[in-house]
């Protein structure tokens, strides 16, 4: 039995346990611990992905107890894919934190910060490897609690309010998830996902099942920030420290999407959600609305962080749209976009954070002429923005292309239009920023020196930006995991 599966989750948790202890002695050690834990997680994720590719889905019984009594961890290609995405982004975010946190979070909060961020990472990794619905709830709660605290950690004006609004909405979400889980347990007597999917078809005509599905959908819908349940997101994103925002946009919301996929495809199954109860078609419409409305909101923003946040909401819509189309190409596009969007949005938020770190600028209009001051950062920003708009040969184009093909495969013409329209709208607000950055004249003549970032911040930015380009050309690499994931999900 492969131990990577438990190690991938336990490493961040152990790190979270060590971090406060070491923090008592030397606060700076926390960063090292966090980097080490995230690095190990990434390493184990790679091993996990390798063994999933060679030997198919892996099951692991924690403590050797068989389900339905014990906790079962299941890693199929989708889980491995998510593990890789999460641990990669987390590692970069933790590395980025070094200088950023020293400047932005003074006053001995470093220990708490790294501990919380490791909890957050561990919780997310736990969610994606667990094979048990109740565990999924518990781990969701763990990373959510860490997330609430991280939003509020800076203690700046508005951070408590932002965190509080997030907390209220997300708690409502988790309560609904718990209710749904409870309903399913009542009716089937099991919480194990594999068991659930076997036992549920007998109760397909029961109202309790519908209720459970509805609760789970809304609950995870809040976590995923689907319109109109997205309202917590822009506030939380723009207030949290940048590395946290990156983890939020690149991983946390994707984990919500992952849970949605699990509930829809693994527990309820393709047939139930498309034929018996048309949940998936309904979700495609919600996703389309999310894409369009969020893009429109993004155009009207004046703060860079909020603009990126709304753009991130729109792109989660792409993921959900692709998956909910429930056809091979669409699901490939949707799942692939989890990764591609993580790269692009991570890079964009990193750059926005870098601008705040260097100059304190948050308004879009003030960005004028920064292209000459921070050329590398701004070039990375441009590359990532291009990927978000979906211009070839960037990674974003590939997922957009698959999504369009998927929409046609499902016979839903209208979504092709939605995707193309949204990419035009995305172009509007990113081009405006890029144009200001490079050709907007110079607003900071003399004030800001030509000055790049410290390496700890520059390296993550450049890795992600290059990723946007590289994975647009070498699409085969992520597809090696995505294609089997789609096979497993659609039950082939």
């Amino acid at each position, binding site marked *: 039995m492969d131990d990577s599966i438990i190690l991938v989750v336990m490493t961040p948790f152990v790190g979270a346990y060590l971090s406060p202890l070491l923090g008592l002695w030397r606060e700076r050690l926390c960063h090292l611990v966090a980097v080490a834990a995230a690095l190990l997680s990434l390493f184990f994720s790679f091993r996990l992905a390798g063994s999933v590719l060679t030997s198919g889905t892996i099951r692991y019984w924690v403590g050797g107890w068989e389900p339905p009594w014990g906790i079962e961890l299941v890693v199929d290609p989708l889980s491995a894919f998510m593990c890789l995405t999460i641990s990669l982004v987390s590692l970069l975010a933790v590395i980025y934190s070094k200088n950023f946190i020293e400047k932005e979070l003074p006053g001995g909060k470093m220990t708490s910060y790294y501990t919380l961020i490791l909890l957050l990472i561990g919780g997310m990794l736990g969610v994606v490897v667990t094979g048990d619905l109740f565990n999924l709830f518990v781990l969701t709660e763990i990373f959510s609690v860490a997330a609430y605290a991280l939003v509020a950690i800076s203690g700046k004006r508005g951070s408590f309010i932002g965190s509080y609004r997030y907390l*209220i909405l997300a708690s409502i979400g988790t309560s609904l998830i718990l209710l749904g889980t409870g309903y399913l347990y009542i009716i089937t007597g099991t919480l194990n996902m594999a068991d659930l999917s076997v036992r549920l078809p007998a109760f397909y005509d029961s109202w309790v099942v519908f209720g459970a599905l509805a609760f789970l959908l809304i609950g995870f819908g809040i976590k995923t920030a689907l319109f109109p349940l997205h309202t917590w997101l822009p506030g939380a994103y723009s207030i949290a420290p940048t590395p946290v925002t990156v983890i939020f946009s690149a991983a946390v919301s994707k984990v919500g999407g992952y849970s949605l996929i699990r509930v829809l495809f693994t527990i309820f199954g393709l047939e139930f959600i498309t034929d018996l109860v048309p949940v998936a078609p309904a979700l495609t419409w919600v996703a389309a609305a999310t894409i369009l409305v969020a893009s429109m909101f993004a155009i009207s923003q004046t703060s860079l962080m909020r603009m990126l946040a709304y753009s991130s909401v729109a792109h989660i819509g792409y993921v959900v749209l692709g998956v909910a189309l429930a056809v091979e190409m669409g699901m490939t596009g949707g799942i692939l976009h989890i990764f591609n969007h993580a790269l692009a949005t991570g890079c964009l938020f990193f750059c926005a954070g870098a601008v705040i770190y260097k100059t304190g600028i948050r308004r879009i209009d003030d960005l004028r002429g920064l292209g000459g001051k921070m050329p590398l950062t701004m070039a990375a920003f441009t590359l990532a923005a291009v990927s978000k708009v979906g211009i070839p040969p960037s990674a974003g184009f590939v997922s957009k292309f698959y999504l369009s093909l998927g929409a*046609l495969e499902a016979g839903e013409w209208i979504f*092709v239009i939605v995707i193309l329209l949204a990419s035009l709208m995305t172009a509007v607000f990113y081009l405006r920023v890029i144009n200001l950055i490079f050709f907007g004249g110079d607003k900071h003549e003399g004030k800001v020196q030509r000055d790049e970032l410290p390496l700890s911040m520059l390296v993550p930015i450049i890795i992600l930006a290059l990723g946007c380009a590289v994975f647009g050309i070498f699409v085969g690499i992520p597809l090696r995991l995505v294609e089997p994931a789609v096979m497993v999900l659609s039950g082939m």
Partner: protein
Amino acid sequence: MIEHIFPVHPAAIFILGALVIPLLKGRLKQIYLVTLPVVAFVNLLYLPHSVFWVHHIGGFELIFGRVDSMSLPFGYIFIIMAFLGALYAIHLKGSGEHVAAFILVGASLGAVFAGDYISLYLFLAMMTFSSAPLIFYRRRKSATGAGFRYIMFHLFGGSLLLAGIVLHYTFTGHTHFGPLESGGLYFYLVMIGFLVKAAVPPFHAWLSDAYPEGTATGSVFLSAFTTKVGVYVLIRAFAGADILIWLGAIMAVYGVVYAVIENDGRRLLAYHIISQVGYMVAGVGMGTQMAINGAIAHAFCHILYKALLFMGPGAVLYVTGKEKLTELGGLYKTMPITLILFMVGGLSISAVPLFNGFVSKSMIVAAAGLQGEAAVYILLVLASVGTFLHTCLKLPYYTFFARDAGIEAQEPPRNMLMSMGITAFLCLFIGIYPAILYNILPYPVDFVPYTIEKVVEKIALLSFTFLGFWLLKDKIAGQPTISLDTDWFYRKAGTAFMWFCRNPALAFAGWVDMTFARLAGGFLWFCRNPASALATGVDSMFAFVVRIFVGRQRHSPLRALKSVVGWMDRLSLAAEEAAKRRAQREKMAALAQGEVDVRGIDSALFLVALMLALFLLYLAVKYLW
């Protein structure tokens, strides 16, 4: 020995080569800029006709190098143009424009050699993005706006093209880029996508909007590539599509009409690009071997003389900073060489014998004649009258002669003159020795441009045009105006859309946020004292309902009963009492507020850590046991 070297993709030479430019400085950079196209040209000469660089990515076959007699002429002229453009711009100190221009060249070459729709789309998008900086570098407000509209319009066209490609793949199962079967939605989507590139009305306004806003050196590059790539892809996919004959003929005259009323010299030239591309599009639509030959030959010659024509006003703009006809005049004294070289371009575009326009344009016109398209023939001849009138007479007349505007000027830098000189030489060389051009065309040429009949007809036509111009030359002086064009639609629509996003959409976003904030706030208020809150809710509900019936509305249907039936009074009283109670309870709930105790995160962390420790302990025990 050279055939042992694996041929390099021409696009790769330019795109990768462009990335080196910022690292170089001074003389070295200048040498590099003119050497790279030469290297690329030699490389292209050694490319055999074949299909290269096929990659399979994600289940799709990408063909990057389809080298055949159709794509090679475009490859040659693009690289020649890159050399001329680079030489013209060599004095620029910064790297940004050079990089953008070289990537534009590379992307155009990539599009020309692309053998499938996906790689084609890739390079077309790259062209859009690399050409925009050449406009943005003008660094003035109108240029920014024009560049922005340029990108957005091309993205719009690209979106339609992408939709067409996706649909094409869904129906046929492949993405091979070849002649399209007529009919089917994808046929039209792909066609519109290409028509946008070729600037065919009504999708042409981006051209006349953006090109004149480019930098002096940038516009030279801009004028050469995008529309000609559009013509190339039309030839590949839509040769012989009847609708193109008409679109092309109308387009040829359309550009002329706008040129009459245009005041900006380079915008006038931009409208003449539209007019000239109209010939090519009409040629593509006719689809005969002669017409296709003519279209390709004309694209080849057009790139040369149009570049020359843009270099002239570019030089004037560079020296004087002015480009409006109403602000210029009398420059023949100070810039005679520029004038002469510009006139070579003007005579070429007007298809005067011995100049290169004559050997290519007359091929398309003759093809129209041979096909018996009388109306198209008339329109094309009319367009050449207009072309001569504006490019060769009006523009130089008002720039270099007419009244003396008293502008301080001198000849442009040597590299500009050199570039113009070489271009002018090429225009003449091809005009005098057309065989060199005819030999690289895809189909065998049995067309003889220089017959006494054709030469006399052409000279008669143009000479009498000159007479007309001389009679009316004061009537066509530039006026300080701009012209309405189809960009009106999307400029207005764009403004409206931005307004929509800034106002109603933003308000809606705010409303959604507020609603959730209120919900959350209400939830909070409820949680402070649920019993009291519930009672308040019931009370206010009661008060609300009763008020509807017996409240203050004068015309309430039950109002009349109120005086009759006593219990209504009592109800009304009860309602007031309930409202009072509600107010009291609200006050109570509010009083319960107090400071929320925000405990340190550290203590919470401690608890979590404790739980984790227990969990780890449990696991450890489990394992050891």
